[in-house]
């Protein structure tokens, strides 16, 4: 099985070259190469290689695409951050370094993933607590109240909560799956599940609504609700549950829309950004201008004006990529995400136990939904939501949480090959 890790090493080498190329391209247009930036970049390349060697030494046979694809996204993110906010480059590199260590922990802990089923309520409790912390103690940074500040540290609990929520839902649902598919009650045209089954869903739904209202974090609300809905469908196979969920969510949304001004504003901006292009819709209009000015080939790194978009290095980083690297670059990012999502679903299908299958499926869904919500948001395909672009946006919580997620997917992808031997 060393063969797999060998492929991974070659792919990592290629992404390393891409990263170096991007960093050099940005540095050279500024006229001088910052050696600390170059050193850190080489350090990160070495770190990725070392992770590969550790995996090889331990005989891990996880999917060889996960790490290089993540490395590629991280390279694009680092290059863009160096171009947008050079002073955040070192911090982002550090988070990626930490992310890699966390990835290894996640990889090896996940080999004992089945044991988590015994602690499913603990997971659920941690997940809900993290969300509650964000809801109750959230501080508004950059437009949404999803930040928690503890002393010198600040992080976004909702990024981590998704891992725990997925674990909890996977354990809860896989345990009760017979119950869920059989024990149903008929109310007219609707087929409703047993109350015991629907309880956690109601909990997630109300949580999502709370996030929606209190935190103004429509993105996270949609994300968690979506994950819960889709995972329920995976187990029950009943489309009517999804429909009921969607109806509930729509009802909730309409009530919120009527009651709360900020949600109205967001939707109005989405429906007609040209009504107030210099005021409320400024950010999304600037984002659209960035994509339009970028065109097919883009302006070239450092030749665009992405800094005209507020918050460009976090939520709107995709617009910066679209402007300076054009449709070619932005489209490539979507394709890279497609590869990652595909491999995530593939590892779910390779899993041997319902629990790990649901975990991988849930994580894949969270990845895909998050990508869809944020890219759809900045391109005005969807009302704008404040969530990060996995592996690319600036931010420690996002990077670390996504590496944990990746580690779990990585190990789940291994199991089948182990068993097949």
């Amino acid at each position, binding site marked *: 099985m060393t063969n797999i890790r060998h492929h991974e090493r070659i792919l990592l080498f290629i992404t390393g070259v891409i990263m170096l190329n991007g960093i050099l*391209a940005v540095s050279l247009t500024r006229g001088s190469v910052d050696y600390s930036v170059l050193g850190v970049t080489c350090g990160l390349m070495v770190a990725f290689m070392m992770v590969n060697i550790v995996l090889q030494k331990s005989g891990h046979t996880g999917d060889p695409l996960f790490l290089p694809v993540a490395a590629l996204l991280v390279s694009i993110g680092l290059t863009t951050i160096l171009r947008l906010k050079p002073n955040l480059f070192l911090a982002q590199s550090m988070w990626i370094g930490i992310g890699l260590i966390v990835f290894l922990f996640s990889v090896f802990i996940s080999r004992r993933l089945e044991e988590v089923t015994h602690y499913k309520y603990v997971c659920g409790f941690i997940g809900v607590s993290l969300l509650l912390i964000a809801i109750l103690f959230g501080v508004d940074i950059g437009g949404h109240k999803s930040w928690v500040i503890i002393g010198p540290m600040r992080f976004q609990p909702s990024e981590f909560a998704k891992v725990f929520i997925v674990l909890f839902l996977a354990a809860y649902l896989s345990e009760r*799956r017979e119950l869920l*598919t059989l024990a149903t009650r008929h109310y007219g045209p609707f087929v409703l599940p047993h109350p015991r089954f629907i309880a956690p869903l109601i909990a997630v739904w109300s949580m999502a609504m709370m996030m929606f209202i209190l935190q103004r974090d429509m993105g996270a609300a949609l994300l968690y609700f979506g994950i819960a809905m*889709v995972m329920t*469908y*995976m*187990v029950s*196979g009943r489309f009517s549950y999804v429909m009921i969920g969607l109806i509930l969510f729509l009802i909730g949304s309409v009530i919120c829309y009527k009651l709360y001004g900020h949600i109205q504003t967001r939707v109005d901006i989405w429906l007609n950004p040209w009504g107030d*292009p*210099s005021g409320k819709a400024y950010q999304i*209009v600037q984002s*659209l*201008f960035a*994509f*339009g*000015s*970028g*065109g*097919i*080939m*883009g*302006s*070239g*790194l450092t*030749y*665009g*004006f992405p800094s*005209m978009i507020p918050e460009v290095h976090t939520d709107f980083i995709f617009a910066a990529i*679209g402007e*300076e*690297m*054009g*449709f*070619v670059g*932005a*489209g490539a990012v*979507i*394709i890279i*995400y*497609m590869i990652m*999502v*595909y491999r995530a*679903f593939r590892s*779910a*299908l390779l899993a041997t136990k*319902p629990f790990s*299958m*649901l975990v991988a*499926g849930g994580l*894949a*869904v969270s990845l*895909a*939904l998050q*990508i*869809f919500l944020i*890219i*759809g948001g900045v*391109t005005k*395909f969807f009302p704008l939501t404040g969530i990060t672009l996995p592996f690319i946006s600036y931010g420690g919580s996002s990077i670390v949480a996504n590496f944990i997620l990746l580690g779990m997917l990585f190990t789940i992808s291994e199991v089948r090959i182990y068993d097949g031997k």
Partner: protein
Amino acid sequence: MKVIADNIRKVAYCLFSLLVILFIYLSYIQVVESNFLATHPLNRRNAEAIHQIEYGMVVDKNGQKLAYSERDGDGFKRQYPYGAITAHVVGYDSETYGKTGIESTFNAYLTGKNNQLQHLGAISHLWTNQVGNNVVLTLDAKLQEVAYKSLGDHRGAVVVMSPRTGAILAMVSKPSFNPNTLNEQWNHISTATDSPLLNRSVQGLYPPGSIMKVMIADGALTEQVIDQKRTINSEGFLKVPPDYVLEEVNRKVYGKINIKEALTVSSNVFFGTLGLELGGKRLAKTFERYGFKRPVSPELQEAMSRLPDFNALGNGDLAQVGIGQSSLLVTPLRMAMLASSFANKGKIMKPYIVSTITDDKGSKVQEFAPEEWLTVTTPQLADTIKEMMVEVVSHGTGNAASLRGVQVAGKTGTAENPHGDSHAWFIGFAPADNPEVAIAVIVENGGGGGSIAAPIARQILEKALH
């Protein structure tokens, strides 16, 4: 197990389709909508990018700089070495007051935004640095300077062009302004009663007066309402029923004169009669033949001539059109084109002012070739009119334009107008046997064309022919 796997597969297909839809939508935004978004007036990216570009130069045909960019703090500032002399042709570029002239019409070239390489994204930066292209004019700065000075303190305009190519060699409008100090003087310039911002050579609309007689002569000969032998008796005035009387200048009595003699002395009675005999329909046809209803060379931003509704004209007005009056209004550029049509065997070349576009290293990016615009008359008739115009300068009203050793063809005009003294006109070309330059001079409220405009034309022609 299997059921869950099947469900996951379905979910995967759904989410994958969402990402594919997103990809297609992104291509719509960045490919189809790209132009709309990139050029949206609220998109400040183009303005920002342009400020950081060193504009190209505007140079005359000999490479004299007429406009160039000089570093000024963060961005660049335009410098105009010839100042007021070329102010209208070259135009100005002000962040506050916009752009005019070549600075406006060829902005895309000067900023380098015409580069096809632009669409290559990052790759384009391998070839293009942030410098725009240079615009090479057909203008001759030295001739322009002479034309500017010879107008003196008069209000008016001069257009000098090559009849064989249509290339504009000089284009002066007075009063002028200094584009280097535009921002400081804007309040004064923009409100002055003598409108220094107006480019009279292409935007000024004037009654042509007697210079129009050369076209009327050609029209009458073409339509065969007269031949070269027929004479008309001028007793100093022409009674036009019911109640209009058209007079010769000073009610001078010329007696029986043919068309050549009539043009030489600029007889109003003779050409008034021609106007009447041609009638509205054939006058309209003649004006149309000479292109007065068609716009020419959009980059020159010429004002359209004003023509009366010929078919509705009474006899008095028809006679007036015959001598270039009535409600007829034309630009100096059109009159230079009229002169050049007889110099160029009846063909009017399309006037143009930009000959080539070069990049910052001097290699050609684009070249503008001379283009034939209209054939207004036969070579024979053009030569006939030319002979008459030679006579005008050698023995007639245009004598003040004559040069030693070079035959000049021309026609003077003294156009009555409601704003005071008559406008003094001169149109012509030289050398008559092998025309190199055609010219139109107008001096607003200057008085007689022969006494005021012809001497100015003489100075300019002398310089143009060395």
